[in-house]
């Protein structure tokens, strides 16, 4: 075993790359859950974004077009979830699972002809001399635009939820939909918008996996990232800043275990690759064991709303 092959600079830089899909998906789900909707379809929306973005990026040669298509694909699948749960009042847990199962199926169907192709590259932003600084240059200034976009989005979501009037309305819908309805707020419309936003974010996260992180299309390539994103929202106690922390923590665990595999640690590969899931479970247990953890959840989370109630 030789741990010296693990370079701290590259470790931190790749941590940010590994965390970005989780961060994007978790931010989307945060807004959805703040509106009182539990969408368990994150995994499905991510993988649909992954293949949708990959296919469009390959066909057009433009990664940006790919990311846009991924957001549209994620939002489209999320809208199916939205129509079912908001208009047809289907159970949110069951519909979320259906979204994931359908997303996994349709993505491998769409991806038949795209395996083994390299997508057009998403280059690092050229920030001139800043990028040449030691350590900081690679870690802070040496990323592609999506990484910066995800950080910006974290701030935007925080500002929206905590500082804007629209965010207050959205939180009101999530805390008590009956009271919000009585105040004349359009509960279903707000929830549909939140669900579409969540789907678009998950789609972007998926596309980041297939276009930058891997970069390739393989069936089932999200391998649980969507579920980890859901866990991050719980870990973050439904706060945007903590979502960032959580995503980077889980990204860090993933990168570290990959580096340890490469360094040839005396643990079988299978045990290292199960570690992100085990750590996610451990963190969920720690969060739920604290009394305050569960109380942070939006009060109407997962409940159907029908104006007759």
């Amino acid at each position, binding site marked *: 075993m030789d741990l010296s092959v693990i370079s701290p600079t590259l470790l931190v830089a790749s941590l940010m790359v590994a965390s970005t899909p989780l961060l994007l998906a978790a931010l989307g789900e945060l807004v959805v859950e703040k509106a009182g909707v539990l969408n368990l379809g994150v995994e499905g929306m991510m993988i649909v974004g992954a293949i949708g973005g990959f296919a469009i990026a390959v066909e057009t040669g433009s990664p940006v077009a790919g990311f846009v298509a991924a957001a549209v694909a994620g939002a489209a699948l999320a809208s199916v979830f939205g129509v079912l749960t908001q208009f047809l*009042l289907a159970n949110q847990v069951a519909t979320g699972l259906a979204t994931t199962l359908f997303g996994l199926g349709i993505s491998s*169907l769409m991806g038949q002809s795209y395996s083994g192709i390299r997508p057009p590259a998403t280059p690092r932003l050229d920030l001139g001399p800043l990028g040449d600084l030691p350590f900081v240059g690679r870690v802070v200034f040496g990323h592609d635009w999506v990484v910066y976009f995800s950080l910006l989005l974290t701030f935007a979501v925080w500002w929206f939820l905590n500082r804007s009037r629209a965010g207050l309305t959205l939180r009101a819908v999530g805390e008590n939909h009956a009271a919000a309805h009585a105040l004349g707020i359009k509960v279903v419309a707000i929830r549909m918008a939140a669900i579409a936003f969540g789907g678009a974010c998950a789609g972007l996260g998926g596309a980041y996996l297939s276009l930058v992180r891997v970069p390739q299309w393989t069936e089932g390539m999200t391998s649980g990232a969507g579920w980890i994103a859901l866990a991050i929202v719980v870990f973050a106690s439904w706060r945007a800043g903590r979502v960032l922390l959580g995503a980077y923590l889980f990204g860090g665990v993933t990168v570290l275990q990959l580096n340890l595999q490469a360094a040839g640690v005396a643990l079988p590969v299978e045990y290292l690759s199960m570690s992100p899931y085990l750590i996610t479970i451990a963190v969920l247990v720690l969060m*739920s064991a604290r009394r305050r953890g569960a109380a942070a959840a939006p009060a109407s989370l997962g409940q159907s709303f029908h104006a007759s109630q």
Partner: protein
Amino acid sequence: MIALERRAAPSRAWLWGAPLLAVALTMIAGGLMFAALGKDPVAAIRTIFWDPLFDPQFAAYSRPQLLVKAGPLVLIATGLALGFRAGVWNIGAEGQYIVGALCGAGAGLALYPMEAWFIFPLMVLAGALGGWAWAMIPAILKTRFNTNEILVSLLLVYVAESLLASAAVGVLRNPEGGGFPGSRNLSQWASSANPELIAGTGAHWGVVAALIAVILAYVVLNRHLTGFHIKLAGQAPRAARFAGVNPARLVLFCFGTAGLLAGLAGVFEVTGPAGQIGIDFNVGYGFTAIIVAFLGRLDPLGILLAGLLMALTYIGGELASFMLGIPVAAIQAFQGMLLFFLLAVDVLTNFRIRVGRRDIA
């Protein structure tokens, strides 16, 4: 204006009409999907739903496969349905299925090459216990720390898949397999084999177990206090608390039963149709069983029918990929679509559609 009006009581007719309508809608939407893939939609639907049962050329092979595939689906879905009824969401049956198979195979292979009557029952017991124990992890975390059981049970699927991969190349690898991953073939070792019981039907011990599970679940749900508590907790959690239902015990019972049955499904599969522990041993029965449970209206008898239908889509899907070149992945999308449509038309069970002037809500 089209509005939904809550029914005073769920409609009995739509309770069973909804799945039929959902299947019909899925066939139409699936046909459109196949047409988009450039295949003849009518031929595709016929190949999936008709040919495996009635085509003179394929039926002889396909019909027994129906029970082989339906067995694990029904076994797992029956357990899941108990939980879903009570509002206990175990979505990690795939993991419990894998661990059941690993424990069962491990218990058997520890005694290899002994020949004895008790080996197979021992393996079944070990498999059931393995699935049960794996399900107990989310259940105990839920009751002890109130941890979200949905996420924990699902995340444990990935852990179980890693364990499977590690066992296939490690502890359970066939020492005479020339270094290839995968265990000894359990279906060829007389003491552990789970053969076809009646020639030409495909029925192995897993199918027998599935039938017993369906009957027991029916009795529990309709004739036993536990079943009443399960239904009460699902429909009116507050009333259930006043009636003295212990939610923690209910969670442990639902997870335990589902894990036990999924573990059984795993051990019957590994000793029978699959034959050995391999890296690709699990094929998603644990997830498809979720669809089966809902399609069967969370009712044991309904699950029996839904399991057969879902098994048919598996076999028909293979046939369609062989005959018409339809990708196997299309069937997974098809199954997901079925669940979508089912959840969508389910609104008719609890609501009435009113067209016309809308009252002030």
